[in-house]
């Protein structure tokens, strides 16, 4: 059986509230796929529908060829890592990891081998006989991981597994998870609200908002070519500039016009989005003055107020900077028209190529 996950028009309602509004996804075999979005966007709801803990109001869920809508949760053969780990407090580490194998009636000999291999993989063999309350957060996380993948599930689900760890451990564990996933080649669906984590760990990301998918793509595509202002604002930092498209050219300010490659003919009000590192100081361009600067080591962050009143964040790498522009200094800003994104002001539809 192929281990791809196909979701068609998934719908979830709570009373009058629509939590998922017809979501479709195609997750490839062995892929590390992340559902990313602010809280309440429906990402956990969707994950729990895949796991079988939420009822499915509409749509079809497939693992490979097999429709799983009516398969009860305990027969779906899915590994899951819960946000708070959900480790059985009355069982030792070893017993926790063996739990799913017991349910599958794996022989004693094989169980021993698989459990110790799993513990080895997450580097907690020395904790095998401890009880969960004697473990740190990071160790519990490893137990939860081992318990989920030891059953060799067709799909591995992770619900914000790192959100209870401190910042340093979070970075460390996300590498552990990523390497493990590569090594085992398990199709993995990962839920997080942390865009940096999503960019770091995923093969592909689905950005969600209000029960809809806003964009699906690789981390690079999502960061570099956000398909709508929401994605541009949610992933990383974006500056939005009001502008107008006339005769195929983009008028940024009264006298300043640039050529942004457009994907279709358009004329009217638009919104330009530029990352702080896509803006740079120049001899000419959009005039403005420095309001405030913050020295951050490898780069300097400026807050610049354009002469038309809009304010922008500009990052300049320390290695490229000859001097720090003082507050109040008159500056000119430019950007590469091939790199920024342009959207229709009204619909938010992407215009740039």
């Amino acid at each position: 059986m192929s281990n791809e996950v196909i979701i068609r028009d998934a719908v979830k309602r709570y009373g009058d509230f629509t939590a998922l509004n017809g979501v479709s996804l195609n997750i490839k075999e062995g892929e590390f796929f992340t559902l990313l979005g602010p809280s309440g966007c429906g990402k956990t709801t969707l994950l729990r529908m895949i796991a079988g803990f939420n009822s499915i109001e509409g749509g079809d869920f497939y693992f490979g060829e097999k429709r799983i809508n009516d398969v009860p949760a305990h027969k779906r053969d899915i590994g899951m890592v819960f946000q708070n780990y959900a480790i059985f407090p009355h069982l030792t580490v070893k017993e926790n990891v063996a739990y799913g194998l017991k349910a599958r009636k794996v022989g004693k000999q094989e169980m021993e081998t698989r459990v110790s291999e799993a513990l080895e993989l997450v580097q907690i063999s020395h904790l095998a006989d401890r009880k969960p309350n004697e473990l740190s957060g990071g160790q519990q996380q490893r137990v939860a991981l081992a318990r989920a993948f030891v059953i060799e599930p067709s799909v591995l689900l992770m619900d914000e597994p790192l959100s209870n760890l401190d910042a340093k451990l979070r970075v460390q564990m996300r590498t552990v998870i990523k390497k493990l996933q590569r090594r085992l080649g398990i199709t993995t669906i990962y839920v997080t609200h942390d865009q940096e984590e999503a960019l770091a760990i995923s093969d592909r990301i689905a950005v969600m908002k209000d029960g809809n998918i806003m964009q699906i793509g690789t981390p690079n595509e999502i960061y570099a070519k956000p398909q709508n202002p929401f994605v541009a604002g949610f992933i990383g930092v974006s500056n939005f500039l009001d502008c107008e498209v006339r005769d195929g050219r983009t008028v940024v300010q009264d006298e300043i016009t640039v050529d942004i490659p457009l994907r279709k003919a358009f004329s009217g009000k638009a919104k330009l989005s530029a990352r702080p590192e896509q803006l740079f100081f120049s001899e000419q361009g959009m005039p403005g003055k420095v309001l405030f600067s913050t020295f951050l080591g490898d780069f300097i962050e400026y807050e610049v107020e354009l002469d038309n009143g809009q304010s922008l964040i500009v990052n300049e790498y320390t290695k490229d900077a000859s001097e720090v522009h003082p507050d109040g200094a008159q500056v000119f800003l430019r950007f590469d028209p091939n790199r920024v994104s342009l959207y229709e002001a009204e619909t938010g539809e992407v215009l740039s190529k």
Partner: protein
Amino acid sequence: MKQRLGQKWRPDFWFWVKFLVIASMCLFIVYPFYNIITKSIFSDKVEGVTLYNFIRFFSKPYYYQPLIRSLVVCSVTVLTSTLIGVPIAYVMTRYNVPGKTLVHILIIMSLMSPPFIGAYSWIILAGRNGIVAKMFTALGLEAPTIYGKGGIIFVFTMHLFPYVYLYTSGAMNSIDSSLEEAAENLGMSKLKRIWTVTLPVILPSILAGCVMVFMTCLADFGTPMLLGEGYTVLPVLVYNEYMSESATNPYMASALSVVIVTCSLAILLFQKMVIDKRNYMMSSLRPPQETKLRGLRRFLVSLPIYLVVFVAFLPQIVVICQSFVERSFSGVVKGINLKNYQIISARLATNIRNTYVFSLIAIAFIIVVGILVSYILVRKKGKIATLIDTLVMFPYVIPGSVLGIGLIIAFNRKPMVLVGTASIMIISYVIRKLPYTVRSGTAFLYQMDPFIEEASINLGVSPLKTFFTVTARMMLPGIMSGAVISWITCINELSSSIMLYSGKTSTIAIAIYQEVMHMSDGPASALATILTVSSIVSLLIVFRLTKGKVKIV
């Protein structure tokens, strides 16, 4: 979870559990109570449906006097319990009282002692032939009497102030100390601070404790029966009306039962509407610190607490001591020995066996039903769960004697003749004591992580098997600590047993009551000692189980 369209609905395990629970509750609570209500609107004096009983109740002092007395006794007890319980809670939570843990345990133990044993040992101490009475007579003074209104209130207060103490100290421990610091910072003196901030914030909890005191007083039968001597309160009147040898009047007894239950319901409604609404949700970021007193001040602050706890715990000591004293019929001490125990093991072995056998069977049911019902109430919320909740908690407002009458009326005729059998005793225990276990179980389950169950299901174990191997296993501490409380109240049960027992199914509590009524102190104290020691040992087990964090209330 909602059933999906197009899927055939089949009754699952939980359907049958819900069905069985509701069916048996209807049979053993609703049906008996329905019988009481219908009996109360009939009479052997008048044809057809009538308010005759109620009119008679409110026109004859013989009937309405006990209601007034009950309300007076309950209200005064609430007041005295508050005056004792709240200051003790304040001092215990705020100052370094020496031996705090022991004091706390002793207070809980005096609450958990068999209710009428307090009355009984106060008779030994301060009754006509009591030590206190003799001391006063020797000094040429008139001894204060333990009989009548004053005595009942005194014994109730000493037994029930722990409710107020427990509720209040629970609230005091969860109050954020910055609240008081804010008041201090705004220039309030210490006493004013307590009066304007601390008290209002914990008031709902104090009132909740008061409601418990009031309801227990209103339902209690043993204490006023032993101490009343003509000062008849409502539960005693119900008993007399139903059990008196001269004229058994089930119609009037039913009407009286309706009056008592109406009073309890009114109190409960008051709690729901007034108290619960004003309950402040507090997240204690910084629980109050204990003030460290030294030397004389520490002693003076602690002394009143020691005195109260000593007086509250005294009955149990007295009963145990008394059980080893052999007396002649005239009350002269003949020696210190095990004679009383020999008497009861010869004469009352059946009662002792019955008490433990009935309670054990009841507890087995309570544990199983408690686990299942707690799970339904917390994890399977909905209209049916609410219905079960109401049914299971209903016995809280029905005094034991009333439930006793209801069960007799309902099950003394075909097709189900249960009166006089052991099963009706056990049924009444299960129904009346189940709420303790369910409350403790649900409280525990609310704190349990629901994802643990999902993790088990996710790993391939079916929901039902997960419930038995994971959930039930993890709920056990919460269920067991509640079950021990159920157990203690089972072995000490008097008010419904006294209605339901027959010669073969008599228990220790009933035997004590009869022995005391026959002025036979020796065997009574030996029996009471058995109950007291059993209760104390059981409580110590709960303390072990919960590591001292026992929740009685």
